[in-house]
């Protein structure tokens, strides 16, 4: 029996601490921000690698974004993934979650489907968590979101997962294929494998697809495929705070603090 074929959706995001608002134009200035693979997506990739270690099979990385994403996909290949596809086209630009999930779902179909789609629960920049359920809906597959643990019973093609609830958790199961979104920090992503490094950087297959390559309907892509529109971007009003710095030894700081907040404390 062949192993699992897992598709991991990866997004490259600007390091959030390096993004700022341009005070003149009040728009996002990502110019100087360095990029990284979205943290949750690294956890999704590690979960896929872990399943591959256990059951064999292969991992395909899928991403939508500009050409500069490619070296990041190669990092994923060096970690242990087998192939990568980058959907890169100006027509994909400005996509909201409806258009993004449509495009990624089309990519998954073009790859030829898989046993399991693994995503991070959300991206650190958009943070909507809407793309994984969106992909599942476009593909008409079951979805399990906010997953912290995965177990596959390969013979039965059954997947069990532990999923976050507002006030607890639940154990759920479904048949493969399905779409999962995993929570940030559920595992420790491994270091890249130096034996794979040269292969990943030079020989590994990274296929770049445009909308035309897949014959996609432009009405479903990018801005035209996005029902939502950003109507304003600006700096958040900052609350007026005293900003008083207390100093001295920790004991003195604690004493000064207590004098200031004592009326707000109810001893119990």
């Amino acid at each position, binding site marked *: 029996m062949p192993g699992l074929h897992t598709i991991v959706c990866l997004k490259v995001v600007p390091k959030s601490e390096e993004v700022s608002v341009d005070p003149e134009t009040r728009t996002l200035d990502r110019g100087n921000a360095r990029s990284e693979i979205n943290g949750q997506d690294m956890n999704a990739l590690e979960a896929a690698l872990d399943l591959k270690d256990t059951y064999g099979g292969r991992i395909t990385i899928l991403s939508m974004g500009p050409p500069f994403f490619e070296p990041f996909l190669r990092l994923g290949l060096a970690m242990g993934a087998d192939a990568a596809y980058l959907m890169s086209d100006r027509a994909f630009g400005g996509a909201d*979650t409806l258009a993004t999930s449509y495009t990624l779902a089309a990519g998954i179909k073009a790859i030829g489907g898989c046993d399991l789609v693994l995503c991070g629960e959300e991206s650190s920049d958009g943070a909507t968590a*809407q*793309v994984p359920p969106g992909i599942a809906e476009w593909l008409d597959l079951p979805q399990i979101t906010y997953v912290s643990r995965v177990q596959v019973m390969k013979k039965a093609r059954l997947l069990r997962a532990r999923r976050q609830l*507002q006030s607890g958790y639940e154990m759920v199961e479904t048949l493969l294929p399905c779409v999962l979104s995993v929570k940030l920090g559920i595992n420790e992503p491994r270091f890249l494998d130096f034996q794979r490094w040269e292969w990943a950087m030079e020989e590994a297959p990274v296929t770049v697809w445009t909308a035309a390559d897949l014959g996609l309907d432009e009405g479903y892509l990018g801005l035209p495929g996005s*029902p939502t529109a950003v109507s304003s971007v*600006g700096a*958040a009003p900052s609350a007026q705070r005293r900003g008083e710095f207390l100093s001295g030894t920790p004991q003195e700081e604690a004493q000064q603090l207590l004098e200031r*907040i004592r009326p*707000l404390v109810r*001893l119990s």
Partner: protein
Amino acid sequence: MIEPRYGLQEARGIWVHLEHEDGALEGVSLELLGRARTLADQRREPLTGVLLGGDVQPLAAEAIACGADTVILAEHPLLEPYTTDPQTKVMAGLVLEHKPDMLLLGATPNGRDLAGRLAVRLRTGLTADCTDLTIDEKSGLLVGEVTGFGQGILATIECPRHRPQMATVRPGVFTRPQPDPSRQGDVRLVPVELSEADQRVRVLRRSTSKGVDITQAERLVVGGRGVQGDFALLKKLARLMGADVGASRVAVDQGWVGHDRMIGQTGSITRPKLAIVCGVSGATQFTVGIQDAETVVAINSDREAPIFETADYCIVDDVFQVLAPLIDALEREKAGKKG
């Protein structure tokens, strides 16, 4: 453009998806009803609560008392507990039949799970995790305010041509309305057609507890990355001063405390009189969750941490070195009172 499922002219009314757990409506659903009541009055349109579940009729009265004109009840064993497929199928059917103008959901794990799937089935726009909802006077459009990443970024998002205009809102963003038991409303029980084939994900077991509701806390002691997993002193201080314990996302993702204690964009929005924030760096995603606190204390060993820009009292020092004498002083006072 993606073809909308129904036209702007047909769309009417505001819907709130009413989430429930252990036989009670979620706080965020009540908060949404309160806000949606204001928006519905502004639009002069009806407000409808949608309740899906096994036996949820008893919850309808509270929804009406909190502002709903009508409650649509869909009852079926496959709607309880929440799973994606049956809830999406029933919600999508109801939306396409009644054509609401807006549909609001709580940004809980299940609310976001449903909203994300439903928006694609309905081919419409969804704004996630709004920190405010208003209606543009001129266009009549729903305007969702969201905080962006990085420091201090605020954006508004609209959905001009697709209906329903969908949005999710975090717990604690809006205040809970005072229930008015004398309010009158309709309860409409609708037929539900579901079969086993409609449920592809099965729940094997669930573990839920009546979690802490930090949105209602008057005092909070909050821990972040800097406490390195050690919440013992924070809990002790919280007990002493009648506070609840909250946490940044990092602390929750590390499993140091439960999800119900998460503050910020991905957790709850809180409004305490006093928040003592320990070892939290203070990215916007966190600070939106305490910006309405009356007094904020920040303790962090990093002088450059942005949390100090949003605090009233700032201490640049080791969290535990400061908490220990603070706890000592409060304990002495307490003992003195008793003696």
